[in-house]
Structures are given as C-alpha cells and as structure tokens.
C-alpha cells in the first residue's frame, strides 16, 4: 500500500472489508481501486467524505467504501448529493451513477446538478447498457445495438455524456477508462480539486452483458492510435510514437502526422482546459475513436461560482441585513399582528 506522503492517508483507509459483489472481470473493480487511490491523494478524511449512488451495478460502490455513503433510488443520486453538499458544504461529496441511472431516469437531476454547479464529484460509469437488470439498452447504447430490449437493434441515437454536460453549461468534464488506472485516478483527483460540479466519465466494460463495447479504442493495441491524453497547456499529441497531432480544420479538428503533408509541431493545437469558451473543448470531448481519437484526461476545468457556496453566502448576508434573532421577532416585524389584553 503506497503511503501518500503529503496527506498521510493510504488507499486502505478508504476501503472496507466487504467483498465487492461484481462479476469477475467487471470494470467496476478497477474503478473502485482507483477511487481508493485517488482519495488517498486528495487526503480528505473518511469521516468528511460522503459517497452517494443511485441504482445499478455502479451504484453498489458506496458499500465498498469506508466513508459515509448512501445507496439511494434510481436516478436520484444527484438530487441527494446536491442536498448533502448544500446542507454541509464542509463535506467532500462523490456521486456514483451509471449511464442508465444517471442519464435516463436521472437525466433531469444530472443536468440541473451540472447547471447549478454544485461542488460534487460526479462519476459516470458508462458501459452503454443496463447491467444489473441483465442487458437492456441504455441512453448511451449505439444506434443499432442489439440487446435484450432491442432484439432487432435500437432505432435511436444515444446521448453523448460529454455533450449533455456541455449542454448543461458544465464547467468540468474529464474522461478515463476503467483500465487506464493512472489517467482515471488523475481525473478523479482533478475533479475533487475543482470547486463546482465535476463530471468524470469512466468508460467501463460490462464483461457479461456488453463485453468489448469500447474495445475498438481501449484494447492494448488500439489505444495509442485511437485515444489521446489531453493535458492543459500541452500539445495535443497521440500515437505510439506521439507523432500524431490534432490541428484546426476549418471549424473542426483533423488528425495529422507531424512532419507529413506540410504539418509541423507549430500547427498542433495546445490544450486549454481553463478556457471559458467551451467550443473547442466540446469538439474534443465528442471525438469518438473512429476518425478522431477518444479524448482522455481533463478536457474542461473552468472556475465559476458554486451553488452551495452561494447559498451559504446569501443566507449569511440576509441574516446580517435583517437582523432577526428569533422566530417571534421575525413574525412581529414582518406580519400584521394585534395584542389581546
């Protein structure tokens, strides 16, 4: 167990003795381990950490943490997490949802938590299926996906979680894969350090009901050419030899090989995660691993007022201004009343 020198916490401090009841080979095991590691790096005490989940395989996660946790109802993790954080802004609040829980029944709570910019760390485990209920298609399943509830293929387009997040005016979006442990850990750490709603999409493999849905870019021999790790301030480079780069192409993006077709390193874009204008960040987040590589790492990280801080500030301001010290005081000052002799 690695000791995190700066925080004094180890991953073991966030683990409990419950056996994780996920299938052998489920991506959730890796994500759980990464979350323990991330929490050790972040260094918030277990007693000040609350992990809130909805319903689904992903949402069993709180039971495997040594923090406070609540396994709530389907789609409602964001609602309850918003309540927890607003009631006690001193806590570090994590929200765990899957693609079904978070974006189908939970879609409404998702967009509002993001819009409100509540300081919660929203982990979205995306395996493009409903796993716990054994294989129905979800809002992120691809068009044409053949599943238990779409035996002839779906006839609808999926949400792209990143696009929904940006559509809700999200200020933080990052992406990891269940098997890219360090990248996912860093995304989680960055999310925790971001003050505001931080969405981390973790592409997760459901080994039983949707095995290999991400393989075309996550497999070892595909990853280098079909994913790109973005770091703020650094050139957008990828590929086995880090010789492919993203360049501007009209209003879009293009992947080129540096040194070919007249493209030099100067043409390769530099990633700016802190830019207020989200147009380019959204483009990056939408790359799907076919023509352009899937973007990993912190894609957007912009500071804006966070909900619970503003609530606290307003309450303090109003209290100060109005100066009431008791219920009776407030009633007598604001309502018509008369005295009975």
């Amino acid at each position, binding site marked *: 167990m690695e000791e995190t020198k700066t925080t004094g916490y180890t991953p073991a401090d966030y683990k409990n003795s*419950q056996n994780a009841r996920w299938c052998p080979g489920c991506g959730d095991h890796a994500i759980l381990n990464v979350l323990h590691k991330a929490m050790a790096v972040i260094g918030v005490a*277990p007693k000040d*950490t609350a992990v809130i989940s909805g319903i689904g395989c992903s949402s069993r996660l709180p039971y495997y943490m040594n923090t*406070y946790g*609540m*396994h709530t109802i389907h789609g409602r993790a964001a609602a309850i997490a918003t309540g927890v954080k607003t009631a*006690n802004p*001193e806590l570090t609040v994590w929200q765990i949802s899957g693609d079904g829980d978070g974006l189908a029944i939970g879609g409404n709570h998702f967009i509002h938590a993001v819009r409100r910019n509540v300081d919660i760390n929203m982990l979205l485990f995306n395996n493009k299926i409903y796993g716990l209920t054994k294989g129905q298609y979800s809002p992120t399943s691809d068009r044409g996906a053949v599943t238990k509830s779409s035996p002839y293929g779906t006839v609808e387009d999926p949400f792209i979680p990143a696009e929904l997040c940006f559509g809700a005016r999200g200020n933080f979006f990052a992406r990891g894969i269940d098997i890219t442990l360090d990248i996912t850990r860093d995304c989680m750490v960055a999310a925790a350090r971001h003050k505001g709603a931080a969405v981390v999409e973790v592409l997760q493999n459901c080994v039983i009901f949707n095995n290999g849905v991400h393989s075309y870019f996550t497999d070892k021999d595909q990853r280098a050419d079909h994913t790109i790790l973005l770091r703020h301030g650094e050139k957008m480079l990828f590929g086995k030899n880090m010789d492919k780069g993203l360049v501007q192409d009209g209003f879009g993006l293009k992947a080129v090989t540096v040194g070919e077709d007249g493209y030099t390193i100067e043409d390769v874009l530099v990633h700016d995660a802190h830019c207020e204008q989200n147009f380019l960040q959204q483009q990056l987040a939408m790359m799907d691993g076919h023509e352009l590589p899937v973007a990993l790492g912190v894609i957007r990280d912009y500071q804006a007022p966070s909900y619970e801080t503003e609530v606290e500030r307003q309450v303090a301001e109003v209290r100060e201004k109005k100066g009431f010290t*008791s219920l009776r005081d407030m009633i007598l000052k604001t309502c018509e009343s008369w005295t009975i002799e």
Partner: protein
Amino acid sequence: MNPVILLTDAFIGNGSSAWRVPEKDDYPEIKVPLVSAERLEQGWKPYDRDNDTLVRYWSIPGMEKGMHRVGGLEKDYDTSVISTDARNHARMVETRREKVARIARDIPRMQPMFDEDADTILLGWGGTYGHLLTAATELNASGRKVAFWQFRYINPLPENAIEVLSKYKRIIVAELNTGMFADYLQMHLPGKEVLRINKIEGQPFLVSEVVEGVISHMENR
C-alpha cells in the same frame, strides 16, 4: 428513521384564521437520536437499536468513527452489513413494523368530545374538523347524543383508539372520499359495522350534510 407523511389540504391552505404568535420557547425541542461519542468509541453499528423504541441511532457525516453506508439493500440484524439471508429479511421486516407500531406510545390518546352517555360517535380526519365539530355541537344541542373525535394520526392510530371505539354502538366516519378511513378502521373492528358519510365533489362538507347524515344513520335509514 421513518418517513412521516403529512397530509394537508388546500381547504386549510386557502383558509385563514387568527394565529397566536408563539413565545420563544413554545415549541418543543426536536431531539434526534444522534449516536453519542461514547457509543461510537465502544463500537457502534448503524443497525443497533434503542431497546424501547427500536429506533436506530444517527451518525451524520463529519462524525469521527461514525462512517457507515445506508441504502435500499437489506442489512443483517446483528452485523449491519448487506444480507441476502431470507430469515434475516423476515426478522428485519417484523422489526420495522414493530418500530412503527411503538410510535403509538408517543402520540396523544383518543379523548372523544361530547362523550357522556353517547352510543354514537362521529369521526373524521384532517381538514374536515371545523365542519364536523360544528355538526356535532348542533346535534348535541338539539338533544341527540353524539360523541366526536377528529383523528390526527392514522398510522399508527392512538394506542387506545380501537378500545375506545369498541364501546360505541354506532360508529360513523365522515370523510371527503369513498370511505378509505372507514375501511381502515373496519379492518381493526371486525365485529362492528363502520358507517359512512362520504362526499366526493371536490368541495368541503356542508354542516347540514353532516347533521343529516348522522341523523339518517341514527334512524337507521
């Protein structure tokens, strides 16, 4: 932790009445069963219960040594970890039921008005209070002995409610629905017939409707 469902209605909300402004200490303190620091030291488990009330102790985020996870999955009665054991589930269901039943110890007992010598009782619940009280007052003033009680607690019922009701020859429930509270009381009073005055017009009772309804039951019409 039990969810409490507070039933109210627009009739009360849109109405008005004089309200006495409370003195500072008029309202009783709300005491939550926070787990004590001593108990946390000794090794508390989230599903430990107070022996009398069967209530669990609250540990809230921020409390040292109080970390725990709650949620929709059933837990083991003794160890508080997730349990899929069938008999444990039955035990937990019974425990939760008993916990709710014991709330009756803390709610006010039933004390019917106009009780002397009445063998008929008029019952209601919720926002119909004013109309039913006036009806009962008028009935008694005109010489018909009718006891009256407005229920404020439905589940559990006041501890003595069924015992008190069993004394009456004639039980009449006036409610603004098809007789749901009457059905519920009927469940608890197998030997008796719970009579009804129902109105489902989306409008409050008229006092005259209630008076007429009681009289027609008393005359066995």
